[in-house]
């Protein structure tokens, strides 16, 4: 019981911190922590990492992933990426516009 309470406390504390994301600051943090290197400046993805935006995964899932990863991505622990920065990064990714339908882009329908 005590343990559960503690977990809830931790979760809500981190949710509070994570919720405070700012897209503007997130853009800077995305560059400063090197996320752009493998995912592209717009989180569009490529050979070095999958697309992150638009429609990023929920913040909690993203946080859990970034801290541990599945292996392909080097994990970022709190010592090098704070929860606040991560929340800002999430806000930035969320702010990115939806991709255009490729059918509406003449160059992709040569």
């Amino acid at each position: 019981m005590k343990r559960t309470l503690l977990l809830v406390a931790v979760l809500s504390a981190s949710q509070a911190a994570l919720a405070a994301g700012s897209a503007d600051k997130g853009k800077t943090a995305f560059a400063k922590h090197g996320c752009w290197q493998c995912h592209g400046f717009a989180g569009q993805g490529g050979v070095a990492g999958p697309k992150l935006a638009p429609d990023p995964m929920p913040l909690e899932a993203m946080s859990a992933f970034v801290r541990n990863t599945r292996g392909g991505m080097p994990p970022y622990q709190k010592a090098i990426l704070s929860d606040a920065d991560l929340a800002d990064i999430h806000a930035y990714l969320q702010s990115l516009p939806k991709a255009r339908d490729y059918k509406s882009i003449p160059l992709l329908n040569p």
Partner: protein
Amino acid sequence: MARKDPGPQVDRRKFLSGVAAAGAATAAAAMSTPVARAAEPAPAPRVPSALRPTLQVAAAETETPRETTNRIGGRPGSDFMVDVIKTLGIKYLPANCASSYRGIHESLINYGGNKMPEFLTCMHEESAVGMAHGYFKIAGKPLMTLCHGTVGLQHATMAIYNAWCDRVPVIVVGGNDMDAATRPPGVPTFHAAQDINALVRDFTKWDDTPVSLAHFAQSFVRAYKIAMTPPCGPVMISLDAGLQQEVIRNHGDKLAIPRYVPTAAPQGDSGAVKEAARLLAEAQNPVIVADRAARTPNGIKLLVQLAETLQARVIDQGSRVNFPKTHYLSAPPTAVSGADVILGLELSDFWATVNSYTDNGENGGIGANGTRIKPGTKLISISSVELNTKSNYQDFQRFQVIDVPMAGDAEATLPALIEAVKAAIPGSKKAAIEQRGQAAKKAHAEAEARAKQAAALAWDASPISTARLCAETYAAVKDLDWSIVSQSGNVSDWLNRLWPLSEHHHWIGRSGGYGVGYGAPASVGAALANRDAGRFSVNIQADGDLMYAPGVLWTAAKHKIPQLAVMHNNRGYHQEVMHVQRLSNFRNRPANYGADMGPVGTRIENPDIEYHKLAESMGWWARGPIKDPAQLGSALKEAVKIVQAGQPALLNVWTQPR
């Protein structure tokens, strides 16, 4: 090595009899060599000829004899070397000039008329070899290069290593002044060595040090033959400066030039071919993987025939165009996961084709391995590389156990394999095979739509996305007879995903050895071959790659080799940007970016290089930096016109990292 021989004294009588012998030798050789070589008078023979006079002899008898006396007292040995080279039809000789080969240099341009081969002035030996590498991948014919034996060869080495790993023939000839008693003191002596070839022996197929002109003729033709026999590869000849400069002595018929007859490529063992065919014919889901399988345009046709016979999907690993990307059986690397039989054709890495590796600090830092395939999947390999392996430099990957391994050239083996597969397919299988094809058609169409939707992401971003870069460039050249003369370009594979690569010349593949600096010179070499074929060359040029030896831009302008270079300028050695970031994360330390965008020592910024100005200074038409995707299309249109008019053009485009 070569003694400074005073040579024969030539008087009128001896001169005429010498002509007779030389004429006879030439007539005999003319029957056996494809290209006629010069019929210069040779010194007097010991044994007079009893043959009837040839036309040359008759002419020599009736014309005023040419002046043969000069400061060296006869014809220089390097003239004969040029005769030898001319028999092989080598069209160009990209090289950076050097004193140790001044003898043959003079013969090539004065005696040889600077034709077949034509000397192309290069500013770095690595550029020269890289050009020869790219040229072969389009033309299918080797070039030779000359270099200074020690310092020049040291510059050339990385490019030779790339050619070795990429199975590309290049004939490297290094000048070397061997006779310590007579060679000029000073630099020529410093730059001489007992065995210059030792430097590259680990990654050349063969090397030799001819000590006489007759020996040179054999060495050179042998070198050509070895280089061109699959698995192809670079070869090296150490060329003594004394031998180049010494006058041709009386060797009688010893100075004959051996006729070059191509060696037929080795085929896989017939029993193994039969076994492979049985496995493929009976498989539920056979998958073909090809890396350097199609050596020639015919290789693509053969692979299509095999794939269609089996309705098997084909993964093209892309060191050459092996299989049309537009074909419904073309498949992504993940297609191995459902296979029960995999046929690997000239793979340099069978291990990674069927296994995965995760570099995430596991197992004490060495990473973790996994499998990509189902247990029990049967593996078949046809690879000529099994016939030619060296110990020191790695040009193979981790050990992969193969069920049916064949040492043989894939393209040469395909006709027999196709026939064996046709014979082995049981009638009862025909419907299932047909169904496989239908499923592949659906998967191919879906993959194409997915790729296009992914390309639409960040379409309007600045810097410009690599997908947009490739799509805009395609739109600018799609109605021309185009050829991509760059390696991957590190553009997230968009060339492969968006361009309809289907013909041999549509794309030259990668460097082989991953030695950065290959891209720019290989593009110029390939563009040279395309120029002669009337094709339009497109190069997606990486920034870091160009700066290894940017002087090749000048070589392109100097020799009027047009190409459209569209820069993928991500302002960094991006692979290393990611590597150092990765290690920083493993070690839980914030990566030190200094004042840059990525780890110290990996970025090419502050100041930014103005590649357009660099190119312009060397005779190119150039524009940039282009950062706004909306400006790219019009700049491309303008550049295409310039290239069509015969001038190389470069656009400095700021791009996303990958």
